[in-house]
C-alpha cells in the first residue's frame, strides 16, 4: 500500500546548506539555518558574528553554505548587515536579502546596541537570533537569554541562574519595526513560511528562532526536536508574530498546555531543580502566556 504513495514535501526541496559542516550531533542551530535558507532562497547574503555558526560554517577557504557569508565582529551583526544593504543599494541591487544571523549572546547582550540602532534606522535587513540560551560556542557561559533555574559553567548548580530571561521580543516590539516573529525548529512549515513572509517585507525584520543545543543543555541529541516542540506546547516559547509593533497574532493556539516539568526533566541543566522551584517556573510561564494571549486579543 505504501509503495504507490507519492512523497509530498511540505517545505522547499532546495538545499542551500551542504553536509560536512562542523555542528555537533543533533544541533538545533544548523537545522535552523537549513530551514531559514529554504525560506529565503539563493539570493541572500548572510552576516555572521562570533557565535556557533562562525565555527559550524567551516574554516577558510571552505564554507558549508551556498550563499555569500560575511564573518564580522561579535557586536556588529546588525550594523554589518546594514552596511552590506547600503552597498547593495549603491549598485542598484534591491532583490538580494541581507540576513544577520546571530546567536543569543550576540543579540541579547553584545549586539543589542547595534541591533537597536539598525531597528531605529529601520534598515532593510532580516535579523535572526537563533537562541540556544547561553554562550555555547565558548563553553556554556550564562547569557541574558539563559532561563531562570538553569545550570551553566558560570552559574554552577549551587548558584544556578536566579534572574529571568530577557524579553527580547518586547524590546524589539517597542522599536515598532515592521515584522517580528518567533519560530521553532520543531515546526518547519511555520518557520519557512515566516522567513518567506519576512523576505517580502521592507524594513528591519526580527525573527527569534528557538534552537536547542544538546551539548549545552545536557540533553540527548535525538531529543532536539522533541524539546523544541515541548517548549511550544508548554507555552515556554509560544509561536507568534507582531506586525508594525501592534498587530499580534498567535500562530499556534495550544489548547491544553503541558506542564513545564515535562520540558525541564529532559535536560540535564535543570536536574537540580526541586518541586517548589519548578512550580515557580510554571507560574512565570503561565504569566507570560497570559500576557501574550492578552496582546493577541484572545
Amino acid at each position: 500500500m505504501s509503495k504507490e504513495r507519492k512523497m509530498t514535501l511540505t517545505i522547499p526541496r532546495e538545499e542551500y546548506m551542504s553536509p560536512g559542516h562542523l555542528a555537533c550531533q543533533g544541533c538545533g542551530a544548523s537545522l535552523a539555518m537549513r530551514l531559514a535558507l529554504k525560506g529565503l532562497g539563493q539570493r541572500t547574503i548572510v552576516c555572521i558574528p562570533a557565535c556557533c555558526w562562525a565555527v559550524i560554517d567551516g574554516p577558510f577557504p571552505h564554507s558549508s553554505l551556498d550563499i555569500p557569508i560575511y564573518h564580522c565582529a561579535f557586536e556588529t551583526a546588525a550594523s554589518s548587515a546594514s552596511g552590506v544593504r547600503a552597498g547593495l543599494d549603491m549598485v542598484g541591487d534591491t532583490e538580494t536579502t541581507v540576513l544577520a544571523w546571530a546567536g543569543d549572546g550576540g543579540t541579547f547582550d553584545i549586539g543589542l546596541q547595534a541591533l537597536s540602532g539598525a531597528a531605529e534606522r529601520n534598515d532593510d535587513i532580516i535579523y535572526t537570533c537563533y537562541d540556544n540560551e547561553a554562550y555555547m560556542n565558548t563553553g556554556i557561559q550564562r547569557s541574558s537569554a539563559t532561563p531562570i533555574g538553569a545550570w551553566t559553567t558560570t552559574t554552577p548548580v549551587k548558584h544556578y541562574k536566579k534572574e529571568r530571561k530577557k524579553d527580547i521580543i518586547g524590546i524589539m516590539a517597542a522599536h515598532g519595526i515592521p515584522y517580528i516573529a518567533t519560530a521553532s525548529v520543531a515546526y518547519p512549515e511555520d518557520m519557512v513560511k515566516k522567513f518567506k513572509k519576512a523576505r517580502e517585507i521592507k524594513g528591519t525584520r526580527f525573527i527569534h528562532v528557538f534552537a536547542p543545543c544538546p551539548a549545552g543543555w545536557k540533553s540527548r541529541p535525538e531529543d532536539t526536536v522533541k524539546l523544541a516542540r515541548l517548549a511550544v506546547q508548554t507555552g515556554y516559547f509560544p509561536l507568534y508574530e507582531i506586525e508594525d509593533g501592534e498587530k499580534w497574532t498567535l500562530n499556534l493556539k495550544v489548547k491544553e498546555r503541558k506542564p513545564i516539568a515535562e520540558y525541564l526533566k529532559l535536560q540535564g541543566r535543570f536536574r537540580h531543580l526541586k518541586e517548589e522551584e519548578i512550580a515557580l517556573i510554571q507560574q512565570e510561564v503561565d504569566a507570560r502566556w497570559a500576557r501574550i494571549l492578552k496582546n493577541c486579543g484572545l
Partner: protein
Amino acid sequence: MSKKKEAKKIIFESEKEMPAVPMSLGSMLYNKTGAWRNIKPVIDLSRCIKCGICWKFCPDASIDIVDDWPQINYVYCKGCGLCAEECPQKCIAMVEEEK
C-alpha cells in the same frame, strides 16, 4: 544549486596562491563527518510511508530523497538519531556501527 560542488580540500602552498580578497572557494563536503558516529540509522523501507519527516528534520542535510524514497547519506550522517526519534512509523532503527 548553481554548480556541482567538489568534495576537495583546498590547501595553499604559498602566500602567492592566496586570493587577494578572503572568500570561500570550496565547500565543506571534503569533511566526511560520517566518521563521527557510533550508531547509524537504518531505514526499513517496507514500513516507510514517505512522509518526509526524517528528511525535514535532519540537521546535517544527510538524508536525500531518491525516487521518492528517503536515503541516508552515510558519508556525512553524524548519527544523532533525530530521524529515528521523529519517524512516526518508527521504521528507522539505530544500529551499532561496525568497524
